[in-house]
């Protein structure tokens, strides 16, 4: 018997670290050359504040020599390319910021991607960056920030009447980490009101357009991280960040030819983000390719004392290395042998999407190390991932907004209905769905991932319910030139595996290098005539809400 009771003698954090070390030691020999998910366990991240985890961002793999086509136009550069030029002294952060501000001035009247452009602050930050040692590949890189991330001293509206005067006293952890890594906040981006739909005004009037169809507001740009996607696709920021509760990173990424990464729940702290659904709000990047997504996630990820969801998780692996293609005799191969699960009917039919999916699978299968495997849908998949079980998220949006619901229903604008729906779901039903979530995860792990390492997705919602990681990336185009994208899902905290597969695919394809044409610059190009003003109704928003 010890001299003191356990509650004061066992330090839980030290206990977890010891247990992890023991588990790792017991798995020696099985861990070499495998992605993090294959590790028996790993030591806990040390508590990290903004700015304390920068070394991975300065590794050689983080930098890529620019494509010749990108050298002439700084806004065309990826993060890895711009970082390469800045490191080489051939581009300054100020030049890069100025190039983006010029495009914003010229084109954002058409795109309407930004809520707020921080031109003076961005130039000041770029000049300051030039006066200090480089932080790594993100040093001086301008980013677009979704307007539900707190930004210290800068309005953060979530595109809602409720937050129109809100000025946060501090940065969201993810924003703070990006800034501490050297990145520059170029502006805050348009979004679906309170992160519900494609970007509109709080009253439902459509604002942001798809960068691939800037004169046609009827073409879905994807939501709710719409402005971040349009800013990156329209070359008004090198990269951007969004949040995903029901497809809000993957959908705009797919719609606008980007590589978007929704990490596993907790991989990125959600502290300082206006909540929509606590159990499903995933912060993550919308980027131009897998390497950039890896760079962004490396900066954003890790344990945060402000967010318990981020604690007690595996260390952030070498994501940038994972997103660096591997070659064998000058031919790309997968970094890790990977079984790619294909769900029933994924590429059936003759639609452009089906044909693109079939071609994508064929290209993947041709990469050494990749094996396509047919996998079944788990039992009760349609029920447990369908709209009724998906609606179990709604009380989570209602509860933190109770003060607003009591005093300012009209302040929710066109989005109010789902906040009221959440108030009607009883505790019984909510608990039932939380019980069903673990059942569903067990089935996904045992029935679906038993036969594969990653799995194609046709809908982001099931893995949003479960908090599993997803990566969205382009695989084709319609006859009209609109992007076609797809989604891969992975095991918990297997972002490295997902990035490795997409990096290899992007090394043998060039869909991710396509860029949209510039929009017409005359102010009347869209939206001026009354007939062109598009507006979502409350009923449509309730149906489309993320």
């Amino acid at each position: 018997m010890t001299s003191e009771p356990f509650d004061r003698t066992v330090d839980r954090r030290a206990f977890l670290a010891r247990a992890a070390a023991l588990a790792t030691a017991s798995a020696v020999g099985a861990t070499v050359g495998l992605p993090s998910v294959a590790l028996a366990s790993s030591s806990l991240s040390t508590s990290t504040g903004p700015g304390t985890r920068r070394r991975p961002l300065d590794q050689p793999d983080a930098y890529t020599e620019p494509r010749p086509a990108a050298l002439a136009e700084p806004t065309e550069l990826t993060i890895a390319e711009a970082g390469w030029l800045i490191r080489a002294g051939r581009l300054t952060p100020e030049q890069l910021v100025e190039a983006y501000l010029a495009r914003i001035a010229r084109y954002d009247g058409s795109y309407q991607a930004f809520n707020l452009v921080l031109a003076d602050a961005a130039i000041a930050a770029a000049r300051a960056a030039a006066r200090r040692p480089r932080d790594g590949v993100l040093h001086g890189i301008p980013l677009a920030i979704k307007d539900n991330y707190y930004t210290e001293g800068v309005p953060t509206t979530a595109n809602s009447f409720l937050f129109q005067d809100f000025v946060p006293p501090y940065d969201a952890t993810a924003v703070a980490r990006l800034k501490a890594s050297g990145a520059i906040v170029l502006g805050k981006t348009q979004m679906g009101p309170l992160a519900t739909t494609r970007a509109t005004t709080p009253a439902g009037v459509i604002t942001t357009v798809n960068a691939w169809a800037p004169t046609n507001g009827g073409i879905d740009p994807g939501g709710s991280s719409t402005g971040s996607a349009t800013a990156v696709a329209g070359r008004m920021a090198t990269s951007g960040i969004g949040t995903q509760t029901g497809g809000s990173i993957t959908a705009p990424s797919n719609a606008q030819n980007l590589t978007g990464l929704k990490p596993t729940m907790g991989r990125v702290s959600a502290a300082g983000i206006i909540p929509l659904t606590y159990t499903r709000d995933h912060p993550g990047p919308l980027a131009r390719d897998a390497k950039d997504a890896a760079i962004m996630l490396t900066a954003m990820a890790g344990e945060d004392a402000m967010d318990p969801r981020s604690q007690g998780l595996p260390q952030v692996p070498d994501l940038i290395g994972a997103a660096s293609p591997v070659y064998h005799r000058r031919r790309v191969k997968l970094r890790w042998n990977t079984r790619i699960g294909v769900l029933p009917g994924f590429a059936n039919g003759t639609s452009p999407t089906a044909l693109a999916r079939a071609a994508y699978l064929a290209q993947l299968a041709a990469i050494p190390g990749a094996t396509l495997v047919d996998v079944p849908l788990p039992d009760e998949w349609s029920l447990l991932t369908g709209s009724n079980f998906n609606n179990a998220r709604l009380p989570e949006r209602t509860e933190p907004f109770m003060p607003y619901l009591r005093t300012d229903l009209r302040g929710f604008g066109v989005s109010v209905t789902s906040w009221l729906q959440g108030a009607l779901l009883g505790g019984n039903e909510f608990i039932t769905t939380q019980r069903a979530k673990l059942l569903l995860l067990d089935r996904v792990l045992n029935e679906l991932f038993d036969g594969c390492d990653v799995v194609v997705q046709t809908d982001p919602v099931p893995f949003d319910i479960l908090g599993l990681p997803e990566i969205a990336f382009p695989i084709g185009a319609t006859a009209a030139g609109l992007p076609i994208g797809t989604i891969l899902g992975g095991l918990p905290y297997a972002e490295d595996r997902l990035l490795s597969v997409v990096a290899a695919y992007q090394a043998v394809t060039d869909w991710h290098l396509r860029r949209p044409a510039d929009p017409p610059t005359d102010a009347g190009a869209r939206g001026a005539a009354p007939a062109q003003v598009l507006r979502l109704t409350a009923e449509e928003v309730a149906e489309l809400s993320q």
Partner: protein
Amino acid sequence: MAPTPPTDAELNVLIRARLAALGIDLDQLPPGTTPDPETGSPGRDSVLASLRSFVRGTVATLAAYQLPAPVGTDPEVANALSQQHVPVLYPSNSTEWRKA
């Protein structure tokens, strides 16, 4: 015997009473079915129709769901064994937390 499904009028009372119990007055919204032109907020009758549909659909479906008992369970003990599934808010995180 299953209870008689509630009528629209009964659901309207339920919905208004539930919201009122929480301190939410639906009459903050415009009357009828016409949205507020300034904010886009729907009329209260439109919202009530949507909320009735939600109660009949989502609430009823979730309430009717019973977690399964293990395959092959004697029906006599199925209700008891189905209670053994526990709720987890963060299932992916729990895969790591359970390793500890």
